[in-house]
């Protein structure tokens, strides 16, 4: 039976297997969700995907802040006539079953009128009747079926921003005009006006001007609307004395348009309207392709993404009220419950505080605090309810002040010039020189053709293919990285990735894994009966440490305990056949003060202290080989917020020169990265909020995350912890990507040389431009797609081996 997997969530049912309806469940939570679904005719959930569910975590009073009218007003998208619309972010959403059940919420509650899921964003938009169903009840309902909405401070402060769709519009306009202009220039291509014999086909010739002016009309929206961004970027580049790739593009578009208009105005030719619209269309397709983003991942997180919106304040008359987090004033008495985050720095008044500061320090050990102790914002309370007195407001607290650092406000994209721009600068200079020289030659040789040649050079040299090479290569690489569990914020990150010289690693949570702890026992050996009692006591407890320990210990017969009590924040106590056992913190079991910082569970049987289980975080498998691969090309540094207790172990693991710094506070990490950056490009690999400053400061900040949808600080890239050991391959791939781009530049230069031959010799026909331009663009796209596809397959094969 221990091998059975939960019908709802798929986890192995090794503890208390709950049998219901001939199906096994790992806990009552999962069973309840199944029951709810079954009662409402939603069993289809399990037919779409097996074991799709997530275990519900219901914490009483967690959503109490949703009773506050101010909070409700800010969260609702629409509220009128008893109908309310709200959009929730559901981090647990992961498969088609989730979509299905969330879109059938109306089966669970009659007041829910409808719900619509946006899966890429992990959002659900729910319309409901506010008279019968309050927002808080809705949130609780979702939490009960395992889809707890993540309502954080960031949702609250955002202004309702408009969705950016202008690129799609522009693409549509350009495509529409391109197609129509192509159709209208057909007679010109086939030389129908002259019938190929030089004799004018009378009736077609008659409408020639009409056709041409129609093409002119179609090109207007392309020039003045669709290619706006290129003109703007070119202007910006010139103003800051920077010749970026947009300058020759804008110049090309402008020349194409003016030359074509003059051509048809004075009946000199048909103009290049087909090339013009095609050029803009292809460029926009490239831009659209590059724009791929991971909507469900957030790269811009700060403390606002972790803090709740509301908090419970104890009024002077002793009554509780829910207030917004921004309204906390110095001296307020606040209530923080189990699993809640402390929003402000404060002093503990009452209650048993067990604070997990892993957000702030990266240290996973739980710190006990006593009345009168100072608590810092960002800590998570584990255990019972505590009351604290606020010392500062939210924005002035220690943790939140870190975000005031300049590292968080600068934009990395603006700093480094992209490879396209570097090439573009030389390219523009070359084109302008060539155009001038050619014009000078023709002015001397045959002045009537000089202007013709000048414009022809600018038109044919328009670096459409060059401008497409980077977006397509990088866009493809972004997808390849994404498929392999490495999610980059944008394509600029790949370019910066290829320049990295130093890699800085955080230790806890980055080099070590949060899940696979190694546990060892120190102390007096336990007898068979005691071991059995220990195992059975652990079985009854739901504390994470108990569950982990339970999974590790040898199997013993399952017995029913005579007595079991759980002391929240202290430990557990069980007894059987006259023997009792106490498990938990040092003070609870009466252990001597040992001063050790490791997470440990102490044991006391009857009246004697026996020993303790120590939890040590294990280093990720494959770490040594990763470092050995990396050290050949990069200098490596370890930067840890922990004590240097692990130094000797690390030195043994990596017997080469590897600087290690311990006891680093968040701001120290930031400063260290900043210093390194004066000499070279730095990549920071970290995981917690304590690395947030260093991640923001570094050239590429990579957040390692066990669950990519749930937690990660602000960064440029999110790396799935399972793929951590592949980091070296990813860095290599980024470098190879840059080689592909450079090869594409060479290829497109070949086309330019051919085109320039026609242009310089003064025989550029519109039809040649119309063939050459799409041909070069398409061959670049094909080349980059094939090359990156090849690299992607190679990477995939390497991962499978």
């Amino acid at each position: 039976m221990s091998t059975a997997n939960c019908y709802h969530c798929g986890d192995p049912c090794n503890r208390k297997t709950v049998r219901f309806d001939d199906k096994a469940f790992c806990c009552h939570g999962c069973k309840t969700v199944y029951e709810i679904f079954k009662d409402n005719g939603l069993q289809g959930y399990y037919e779409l995907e097996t074991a799709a569910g997530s275990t519900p975590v219901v914490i009483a009073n967690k959503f109490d802040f949703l009773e506050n009218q101010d909070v409700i007003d800010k969260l609702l998208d629409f509220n009128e006539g008893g109908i309310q619309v709200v959009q929730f972010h559901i981090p647990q959403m992961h498969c088609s079953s989730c979509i299905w059940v969330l879109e059938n919420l109306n089966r669970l509650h009659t007041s829910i009128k409808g719900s619509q899921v946006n899966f890429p964003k992990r959002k659900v938009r729910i319309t409901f009747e506010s008279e019968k169903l309050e927002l808080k009840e809705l949130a609780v309902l979702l939490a009960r079926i395992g889809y707890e909405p993540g309502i954080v401070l960031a949702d609250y402060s955002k202004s309702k921003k408009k969705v950016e769709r202008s690129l799609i519009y522009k693409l549509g306009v350009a495509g529409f005009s391109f197609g129509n202009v192509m159709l209208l220039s057909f007679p010109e291509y086939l030389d129908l006006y002259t019938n190929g014999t030089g004799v004018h086909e009378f009736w077609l010739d008659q409408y020639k001007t009409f056709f041409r002016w129609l093409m002119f009309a179609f090109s207007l929206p392309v020039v003045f609307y669709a290619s706006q961004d290129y003109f703007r970027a070119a202007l910006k580049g010139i103003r800051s004395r920077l010749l970026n790739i947009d300058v020759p593009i804008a110049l090309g578009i402008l020349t194409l348009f003016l030359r074509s208009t003059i051509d048809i105005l004075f009946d000199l030719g048909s103009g290049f309207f087909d090339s013009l619209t095609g050029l803009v269309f292809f460029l926009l397709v490239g831009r659209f392709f590059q724009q791929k983003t991971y909507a469900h991942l957030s790269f811009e997180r700060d403390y606002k993404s972790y803090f709740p919106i509301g908090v419970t304040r104890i009024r002077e008359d002793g009554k509780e009220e829910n207030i917004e987090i921004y309204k906390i004033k110095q001296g307020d008495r606040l209530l923080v419950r189990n699993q809640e985050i402390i929003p402000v720095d404060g002093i503990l008044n009452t209650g048993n505080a067990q604070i997990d500061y892993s957000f702030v320090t990266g240290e996973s050990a739980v710190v006990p605090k006593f009345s009168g102790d100072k608590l810092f914002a960002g800590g998570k309370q584990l255990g019972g309810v505590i009351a604290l007195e606020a010392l500062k407001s939210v924005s002035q607290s220690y943790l939140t002040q870190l975000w005031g650092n300049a590292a968080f406000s600068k934009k990395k994209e603006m700093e480094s010039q992209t490879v396209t721009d570097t090439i573009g600068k030389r390219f523009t200079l070359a084109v302008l020189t060539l155009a001038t020289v050619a014009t000078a030659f023709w002015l001397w040789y045959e002045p009537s053709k000089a202007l013709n040649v000048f414009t022809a050079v600018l038109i044919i040299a328009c670096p459409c293919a060059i401008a497409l090479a980077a977006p397509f290569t990088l866009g493809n690489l972004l997808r390849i990285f994404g498929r392999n569990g490495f999610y980059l914020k944008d394509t600029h990150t790949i370019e910066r990735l290829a320049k990295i010289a130093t890699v800085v690693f955080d230790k806890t949570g980055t080099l070590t894994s949060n899940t696979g702890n190694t546990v060892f026992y120190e102390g007096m050996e336990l007898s068979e009966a005691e071991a059995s009692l220990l195992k059975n006591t652990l079985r009854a407890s739901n504390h994470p440490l108990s569950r982990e320990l339970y999974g590790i210990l040898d199997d013993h017969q399952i017995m029913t305990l005579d007595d079991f009590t759980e002391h929240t924040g202290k430990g557990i106590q069980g007894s059987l056949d006259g023997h009792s056992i106490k498990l938990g913190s040092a003070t609870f079991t009466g252990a001597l003060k040992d001063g050790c910082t490791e997470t440990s569970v102490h044991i006391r049987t009857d009246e004697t202290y026996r020993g303790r289980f120590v939890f040590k975080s294990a280093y990720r498998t494959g770490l040594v080989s990763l470092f050995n691969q990396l050290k050949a090309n990069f200098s490596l540094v370890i930067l840890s917020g922990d004590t240097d207790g692990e130094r000797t172990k690390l030195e043994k693991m990596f017997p080469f020169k590897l600087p290690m710094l311990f006891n680093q506070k968040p701001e120290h990490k930031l400063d260290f990265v900043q210093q390194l950056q004066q000499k070279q490009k730095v990549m920071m690999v970290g995981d917690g909020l304590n690395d947030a400053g260093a991640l923001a400061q570094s050239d590429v900040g990579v957040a390692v995350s066990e669950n990519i949808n749930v937690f990660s600080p602000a960064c440029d890239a999110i790396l799935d912890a399972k793929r951590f050991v592949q980091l070296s391959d990813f860095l290599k791939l980024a470098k190879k990507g840059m080689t592909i781009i450079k090869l594409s530049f060479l290829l497109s230069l070949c086309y330019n040389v051919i085109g320039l031959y026609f242009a310089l010799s003064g025989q550029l026909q519109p039809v040649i431009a119309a063939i050459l331009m799409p041909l070069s663009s398409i061959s670049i796209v094909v080349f980059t797609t094939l090359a990156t596809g090849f690299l992607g397959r190679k990477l995939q094969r390497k991962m499978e081996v």
Partner: protein
Amino acid sequence: MSVIYVLLTISVCVALVFFAAFVFSVRKGQYDDSYTPSVRMLFEDELVEPTAKDNNQNKTQTD
């Protein structure tokens, strides 16, 4: 031969209708989420009417 004006007008009008349809669909947000609808269209028949009998017969056991 002025029929060519008529024909061209019609062809441009048809093209404009499609263009308008495109703009309309973008504005309606049809391009915001290109994944969920592809899954949604496969749902339909999974809803089962709950029967009262089923619920009473099942008993929860813990072992």
